[in-house]
Structure formats: structure tokens, C-alpha cells
């Protein structure tokens, strides 16, 4: 921990951890379910942030990867009747294989081309999920994905998701601060400079995409066990775009921002929508306000002001 910023971060982390762990004692089943969902879509958005916020590679197909993992689990559970270990194993494999195939396709692209390719990739998975009726159940999806005994109760699963998301967040936190993570930011800033410094940027993109795909895969597995159901809409562009939206809302390139963005979107979508049917309008307005008045997103804007305040007082310390 370094300087005042370190202490503020530590304080916020401890406070949110305390609330997070105690949550099932504080609120009802409905809200715990909402928070579980927000944690999972938050992890999903963080996987997008790794590519978009750090690498400057805005992906519009991430839901395809998560959905592939979800389908892997659901198929093994519903159609093959396999055990939970096999379900998770096939889910992981499905997500990682799809990631690898996609990664090879994007490794020589950037900018708008990268966006267009990932958009197409996501739609391919969506198309397959509708067409491959025997595997995916087409529009009906695959219902009845049961959780293992020890996770069957809502609060058990909540704590499990909390632990997994925390571990994944810690991993992401280390990755973006690693030598690789810093070079990934270099990719966002100037690929031509990285190349003449000696970085194989195609390889770098491949690796970043795989790491991001891994976390999207984990999110997909967690989600299918939460909903106990998967259908083609999980792979749709809407799902990918929602993840990008959460990321922008909370703050691109901040990791914690996308998680907060996810809580906001899930809250609007599942709680506010009960009293206010036009919640998408509300979300659109919120999005416009953030883009106009906090261009770095909520967390990005706050931390930038904080940094400027510290700098004015001569309290800024090196990041590393």
C-alpha cells in the first residue's frame, strides 16, 4: 500500500468485503440473488475491460464465449446427464476452445476491424445456438441445470460466487499491474511504437484475448448455474453490448468500474424495472449523463479528480 490512495482503496475494499460476506444476513433472498447476478456480470464486464480498457481492443462478441461455456455445462448436465466435474470441465473447454479460435482470427487486427470481427464471432455463436437444436435446444434453450448439493441453496451459491469472483478479480488486478499488463496498455496507446521496441503485438493480442476469454468462460459457467438455464439470447449481441456498456458506465480501464457498472445495470434491470417499465430509457439517460459529464466513467472520473487533488498537494506517489 502506497500513500493516501492505498489507504483509501484498502478501506473501501475491507468495507465492501465485510458487507459482501455478511449480505445473506442483511437482506432477503431476492436481493442476494440480484447481487449474485451483478457479481457474475461484473466479472464478465471485467473480462471485457481487460481487452477494451487496457488493450484498446473493444470487443463486441464476448457473450459468445461465455455462452459457449454455459452451453458446455448445460449440455453435459441436461443432455448427457454427466456429473458436475465433467459439466464444469466441458464448460471450461468449450469457452477456451472458442476463445482460441477467435483469438487466432483477431490477432492481426485492431481498431474498428477488431470490433467488426468480434461482433461477427459473437453472432456466429448466437446463430449456432439457434441452429444446433440437438445440442442447444434452439429457442427453448436448456432448462434444468442443477447445482451440486452443497451449492443448492441461494446463499450457499452466493458465497461461492463471491469467492470465485474475488479470486478472479485478484488475478485480474495482478495481471493489469504485471509487465504484460503494462505492455498491454502500450498496445492501446501505440501499436507501432510497441513493434519497433520488439513486442510481437500479434502474439500479445492472442494472449490477451485468451486471458480475457478465460474470465468470460468462468462468468459463463457461474451464470448458467445461477439461472439453471441457458438460451440463445445469452450469446446475442445485446448481451455483449451490455457488458461494454457496464464497462463504459463504471470506467474503462479501471477493472473495479465495470463491476460497479454491472451493479447499476442489474439494479435498473431487475429492481427498478418492477416499478418503472421504461427502465431502458432510464439506463439510456444515465449513459448519456455519464458520457457527457464523466467521460472516464464513474470510477475513472473519481480517481482522476482524486489524483489531481493529491498532485496539487504534492502527495502523489509513484504507481510502482
Amino acid at each position, binding site marked *: 500500500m502506497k500513500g493516501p490512495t492505498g489507504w483509501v482503496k484498502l478501506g473501501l475494499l475491507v468495507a465492501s468485503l465485510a458487507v459482501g460476506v455478511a449480505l445473506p444476513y442483511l437482506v432477503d433472498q431476492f436481493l442476494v440473488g440480484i447481487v449474485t447476478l451483478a457479481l457474475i456480470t461484473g466479472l464478465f464486464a471485467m473480462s471485457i475491460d481487460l481487452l477494451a480498457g487496457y488493450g484498446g481492443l473493444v470487443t463486441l462478441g464476448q457473450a459468445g464465449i461465455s455462452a459457449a461455456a454455459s452451453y458446455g455445462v448445460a449440455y453435459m448436465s441436461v443432455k448427457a446427464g454427466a456429473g458436475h466435474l465433467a459439466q464444469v470441465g466441458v464448460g471450461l473447454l468449450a469457452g477456451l476452445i472458442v476463445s482460441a479460435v477467435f483469438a487466432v482470427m483477431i490477432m492481426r487486427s485492431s481498431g474498428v476491424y477488431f470490433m467488426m470481427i468480434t461482433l461477427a464471432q459473437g453472432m456466429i455463436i448466437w446463430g449456432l445456438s439457434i441452429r444446433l437444436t440437438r445440442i442447444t435446444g434452439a429457442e427453448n434453450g436448456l432448462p434444468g441445470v442443477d447445482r451440486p448439493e452443497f451449492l443448492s441453496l441461494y446463499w450457499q451459491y452466493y458465497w461461492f460466487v463471491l469467492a470465485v469472483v474475488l479470486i478472479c478479480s485478484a488475478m485480474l488486478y495482478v495481471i493489469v499491474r504485471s509487465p504484460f499488463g503494462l505492455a498491454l496498455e502500450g498496445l492501446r496507446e501505440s501499436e507501432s511504437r510497441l513493434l519497433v521496441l*520488439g513486442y510481437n503485438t500479434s502474439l500479445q493480442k492472442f494472449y490477451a484475448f485468451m486471458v480475457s476469454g478465460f474470465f468470460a468462460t468462468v462468468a459463463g459457467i457461474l451464470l448458467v448455474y445461477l439461472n439453471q438455464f441457458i438460451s440463445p439470447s445469452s450469446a446475442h449481441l445485446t448481451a455483449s453490448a451490455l457488458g461494454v456498456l457496464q464497462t463504459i458506465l463504471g470506467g474503462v480501464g479501471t477493472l473495479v468500474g465495470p463491476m460497479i457498472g454491472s451493479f447499476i445495470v442489474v439494479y435498473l434491470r431487475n429492481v427498478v424495472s418492477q416499478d418503472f417499465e421504461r427502465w431502458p430509457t432510464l439506463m439510456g439517460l444515465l449513459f448519456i449523463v455519464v458520457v457527457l459529464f464523466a467521460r472516464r466513467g464513474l470510477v475513472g472520473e473519481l480517481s482522476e479528480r482524486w489524483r489531481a487533488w493529491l498532485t496539487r498537494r504534492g502527495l502523489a506517489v509513484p504507481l510502482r
Partner: protein
Amino acid sequence: MIGAGVVDRVLHVENVKVRFGGVTAVNGVSFEVEEGARWAVIGPNGAGKTTLFRTICGEVYPTDGRVHLFGRDVTRKPAHSRAQMGLGRTFQVTNLFPNLTVEENLAIAAQARSKRRFVSWAPLRIRGELAERIESALSRVGLSERRLATVAELSHGEQRQMEIAMALANAPRVLLLDEPAAGLSAAERSVVRQLIEELPRDLSIVLIEHDMDIALELVDRVLVLDNGNPIAEGTPDEIRLDPKVQDVYLRDE
């Protein structure tokens, strides 16, 4: 692997031609740089100097001709492989990582040729050799006080210094400097001039400079391009007296 003997010819450009559609940007250029030598490539705007650099670095592949680096044919090798061999360059139009700090910029450059750049499971710590490289690059260009500023916050002059610092932190054996003093005031230009003069003598340098007076004072050999064509090659004194070169520069004025 070349034996105990020193590779004395570090860069060899052989009859390189580069065409972009109908435009011939570089038309049959050849030269050889020996270890520790300092070359200048001069010529009016649009002469093909930057394109020649891009060909040497691997950012564009030549339409014809060959490029050899440290005795190896690298004509079709990608830019990053050539950088790994020890070729560095700076850019005429500042090309840095604007939203990262000075220190982070240099860390990316300094780790670029070590295995450390692949590490993703431990935080980056600027310590030991990495810190020394960054420090020495910073002090050479006089930016030690600015290490926590983002590059976007630097003045144009400071950014031009950073261009050179980035290349130095990368520890190349051959350095291509593309108009390092571009857009600087007279005072700033003399700082850059001195900086280049004081670079380590074992570093081989090719300098592009639009301003003939500055260029000729810094190097031992000069290549003059006009419209993509090599029109003269020689020592600075020979170049000063060369009537073809005078023609080109008078025409340009």
C-alpha cells in the same frame, strides 16, 4: 552465430527500392554502416528518408533490394524481430504512450528485450537493472524530474527528448533517429544536438536531419537523397562541397 570476431558491419542496405502505387519513395539506395559509425541521411522533404528508415525497421518491406542487420538478411523479417536483434528507432512525428507516465513509458521500452515482458502473474516492480536503465535514460535526456508526469502532460520539447529516451531504454546497438529536433526552437535544438553528440561511442547511429548544418556536424558519413534517388555519399566535408547537393538545397530554399 558469428564467432569471436566482432561483426563490424552492423547494417547493410543493398539497392533498396520502395514503391507506393505509382510513387517511388526510395529508388535504389545502398549504404553500409560499420559498428560505432555515425551516419546522416539528408535531403529535402519527401526525399524518402523516413520511408528508408521504415524499410530498415521492417515497418514496410522493400519492393526490391535487401536489408542486412548484423550480417543477417532481415529483408522479410517483421519489425519486432529486428528490434529484438538490437535495432532501435525514434519517430519524426512523436510516437509515445501518451496516457502513461514517463516512467511507465520507459519501463515498457526497458523490458521489451527481456523475458520479463511476458510475466503476467506478478506485479511489475521497477527495481534493479530495470530501474537503472530507466534512470540512465532519464538522466541522459534530463527528464528525471518528470518521471511521474504522463507523457501527454509534457511539453513538445520534452516529448522529443522522450523519443530519444525510449530508444535508449531499449538498449539498441544500432539507432535510427528520424529528425530528433523536429519542431524545436533554436535553444532546444542545441540541447538535442549535444545529447546526440554525447551518446555512447559504441552505439551505431543513422540520423535523419532536414537541417544540413546540424547533421554534418554530428556524423562521419553522409548520404544525400533527392526524390528517392541517392545523389551523393561521403564525408561531411565532401558533401558540403558537392555541387549536386548544393543544387538540391538551393532549389529547396
